């Protein structure tokens, strides 16, 4: 579900790139030629380069390439499976129902992104640059909706405003027979906007805080009016961050399954699922999945081509004055109402609904024993995926960090592909692939774990990579020269020093798996339930009380994972000791 947060933090957009720069400049060598980007790095002589000159050992290369291929193969198979139906493909692609699904998806993605950008930028600006009362408090509460997986948010919405929801049952005695329907586009739009605007807000907040106020002052001193300064100076500086946030929102909306399926809005992910579970011929599901994958690729490619310049658009980090505070004047009250309303809707309502249904369930004698089994299921399968994911990440990371070059870059990039694709498409690809080539694994836990590894490998790669970049290759060389083989050096020097990164990778993969919904739904063995599938299933059948306890557990889990990400982001600059 919000695994795109991982994309945000780990795709080399922020942390990785910054770490790299820190690493190189932090070495503080007098004879360092020039600040090294990715390109100069490849050509540099050894003192500046971590042993990358030597050709990577063959076994390592084969292992890494194998892992990279394993993450890509199922996707390739999805294409084959979709094309197998021959001309039937065109029949499916061009039928009116497909067109309406496509339009639904596009409209939803567009409107959610627009809504998120408006809310996100406004809140970021209000909490950073104005005299809004209790700015710190609002900055925190408006970010917190990130901890709600979309299906939990949808559960909250349905549980509150649905036909048998909280509001309805409270209003029933007052003679209200029927609330306006929450299902369909309005509900899906509301849920997704409320739970994705923090991506924009966080990204813009960072840019606003990084913006050197002297730039604005300089523009003012050169005779520009305040609104023009905002348009000519501030906004261009915010554009890359808005861009980055919006990309996350688009990808999130495209890949979201929980909210659209629970709110019964027929976008791609829901249509794929319906086709997959109800139709005998699964070609339609494959074709739809392929279309969704292509749509995602188009967006990623467009973004990639536009990214080039934007990435280095950040202002310098010299000592500077705190940003100028804009007095809100008569807009203070409306602004206050706005942030309160957003916080209430995105955070207050869901938490209230969860607690409300928890109590309703308790009073109605809802049994909690089954939840223990389900939580245990989640724990076991996520734990296995975490260990497998970190183990699979190691060869990729060692290759990428210690032997930078074409091969290692390709391998690393490959692992990101599946991660940026909708989980339902990846799951479907695995279903087809498994049914055809490894029927023994079909509907097994192993298959589910494999899907988790593919989906969340970049989270592990990102954490391991960051911690390995902080590790001077001289340490490993010292180990070799002191007479230990490379394997033993890995064991006695590299691994112990990378422990924080390893733990972080384990935690991130584990927590992401706990929250994963579509792949679990499609690939899980029959009768196998996790917290996520339980919330989804119970909400769909309007057993809100049954969904409350798992939802509460998952919110806690998400909160922990979010906290880890932020702690890491902040700590990544200050671990100079191991350099």
């Amino acid at each position, binding site marked *: 579900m919000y695994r795109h947060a991982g994309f945000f933090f780990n795709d080399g957009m922020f942390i990785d790139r910054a770490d790299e720069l820190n690493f190189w400049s932090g070495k503080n060598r*007098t004879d360092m030629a020039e600040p090294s980007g990715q390109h100069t790095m490849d050509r540099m002589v050894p003192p500046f380069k971590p042993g990358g000159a030597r050709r990577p050992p063959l076994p390592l290369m084969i292992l890494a390439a194998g892992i990279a291929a394993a993450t890509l193969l199922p996707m390739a198979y999805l294409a084959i499976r979709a094309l197998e139906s021959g001309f039937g493909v065109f029949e499916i692609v061009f039928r009116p129902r497909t067109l309406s699904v496509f339009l639904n998806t596009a409209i939803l993605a567009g409107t959610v992104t627009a809504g998120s950008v408006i809310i996100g930028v406004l809140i970021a600006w209000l909490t950073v640059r104005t005299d809004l009362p209790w700015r710190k408090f609002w900055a925190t509460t408006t970010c917190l909706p990130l901890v709600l997986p979309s299906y939990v948010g949808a559960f909250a919405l349905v549980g509150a405003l649905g036909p048998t929801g909280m509001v309805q049952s409270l209003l029933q005695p007052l003679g209200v027979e029927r609330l306006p329907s929450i299902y369909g586009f309005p509900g899906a739009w509301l849920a997704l906007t409320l739970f994705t605007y923090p991506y924009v807000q966080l990204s813009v907040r960072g840019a606003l805080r990084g913006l050197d106020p002297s730039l604005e002052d300089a523009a003012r001193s050169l005779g520009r009016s305040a609104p023009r300064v905002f348009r000519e100076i501030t906004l261009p500086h915010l554009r890359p961050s808005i861009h980055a946030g919006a990309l996350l929102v688009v990808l999130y909306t495209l890949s979201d399954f929980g909210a659209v399926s629970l709110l019964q809005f027929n976008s791609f992910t829901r249509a794929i699922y319906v086709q997959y579970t109800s139709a005998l011929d699964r070609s339609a599901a494959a074709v739809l999945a392929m279309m969704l994958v292509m749509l995602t690729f188009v967006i990623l490619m467009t973004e990639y081509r536009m990214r080039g310049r934007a990435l280095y658009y950040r202002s310098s980090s010299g000592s500077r004055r705190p940003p100028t505070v804009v007095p809100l004047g008569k807009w203070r009250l409306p602004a206050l109402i706005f942030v309160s309303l957003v916080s209430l809707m995105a955070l207050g309502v869901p938490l209230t609904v969860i607690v409300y249904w928890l109590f309703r369930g308790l009073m109605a004698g809802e049994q909690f024993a089954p939840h223990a089994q389900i939580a245990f299921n989640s724990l076991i399968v996520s734990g296995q995926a975490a260990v497998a994911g970190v183990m699979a990440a190691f060869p990729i990371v060692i290759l990428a960090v210690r032997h930078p070059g074409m091969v290692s870059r390709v391998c690393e990039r490959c692992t990101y592909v599946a991660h940026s694709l909708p989980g339902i498409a990846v799951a479907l690809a695995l279903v087809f692939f498994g049914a055809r080539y490894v029927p023994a694994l079909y509907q097994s836990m192993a298959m589910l774990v494999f899907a988790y590894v593919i989906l969340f490998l970049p989270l592990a790669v990102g954490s391991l990579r960051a911690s390995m970049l902080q590790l001077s290759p001289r*340490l490993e060389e*010292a180990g*070799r020269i002191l007479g*230990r083989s490379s394997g033993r050096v890995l064991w006695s020097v590299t691994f112990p020093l990378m422990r924080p990164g390893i733990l972080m990778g384990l935690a991130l993969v584990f927590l992401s798996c706990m929250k994963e919904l579509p792949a679990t739904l499609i690939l899980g063995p029959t009768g196998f339930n996790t917290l996520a599938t339980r919330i989804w299933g119970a909400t769909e059948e309007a057993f809100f009380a049954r969904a409350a306890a798992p939802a509460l557990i998952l919110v806690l889990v998400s909160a922990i994972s979010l906290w880890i990400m932020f702690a890491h982001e902040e700590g990544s600059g200050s671990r100079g000791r191991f350099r």
Partner: protein
Amino acid sequence: MTDIDNNQKQRTAIECVGLCKRYGDIPAVCGADLSVSEGRFLALLGPSGCGKTTVLRLIAGLEVPDRGEVRVGAQTVAGPGINVPPEERKVGMVFQEYALFPHLNIEDNAAYGLSAYERSQGKRAHEVLSLVGLEGVKDRMPHELSGGQQQRVALARALAPRPDVILLDEPFSNLDAGMRVRLRAEVRRILRKAQVTAVFVTHDQEEALSLADEIAVMIDNRIVQTDTPERLYRRPESHMVATFLGDANFLPGRARNGAVECELGTLPMAQGTEGDVEIMFRPEDLVLTSDEKGPGVIIEREYFGHDQLLRVRMDSNTILKSRLVGCCRGLREGERVRVKVDSPVIAYPSPYGCPAEVSPLE
């Protein structure tokens, strides 16, 4: 120094023949030949980026040469079809950044290279730590030590497995000036006591001259001259070496029968070719005498305390440098002087063919 000179016929500890290494299109080492006798200290001296660290890494086995051979003792460790991994070369190395393992305490760091048996005994780690005078801190972690202490731990760690050869990469560059001078003598003492052959890389001439038995000067990825410090300073084999190591005066001249004619008259020649040459002499060999009718005038004086550097412009517009030790002997800027070269000069083949084009200084 003398007993070392007497033992010159010792066995070779390290030998490099025709070493070449490129990184992509960029050459790092081009045909380096090097030979170090057992028990001697060799300094690889050169400006930044000349490839000296690469030579060290090639010897250690951290890089694989494109061409050439490396021998440690009697064994060929790198060459055509041969590449002994670093852990089997019995070579110790002290890294510029020390590379102490941050998760191990000082004792465990020092013991890292020992066999499991020796580690359990704990004797050898103790021995090397006392050799560098750091037994007292064996339970501390690396980041709790000062830079100088870390450096000595790195040295102890490298010495612990009793390597035949120890390599030091810019060993003093991360230390402040005062510490550097003290540690230099200390490290020299420790290495002599451990009776190892050492190769160290530096860009600091003073460090190389004071610490090494022999210096290999490396410029532009090539080793241009290997000699004792004294010979290297007094008899540099090329213009390049002469300017790199210390100050030098150059003048065009014509050599014949062991003497050179130049604008300072006919000077005896210590070594060099016949014909059109460029002569070199050190500033301390140029003696100035105050003389109203002398052919030169002092245009600049830099006073350093123990000595001073004077620049003299000759009537021919040539500028010469003179280093005077001791008191100033009344020489001031603007004063006219007579000049005399006090020792035989070195002659190089004239680099330009046409002596007039030689621009001797700077």
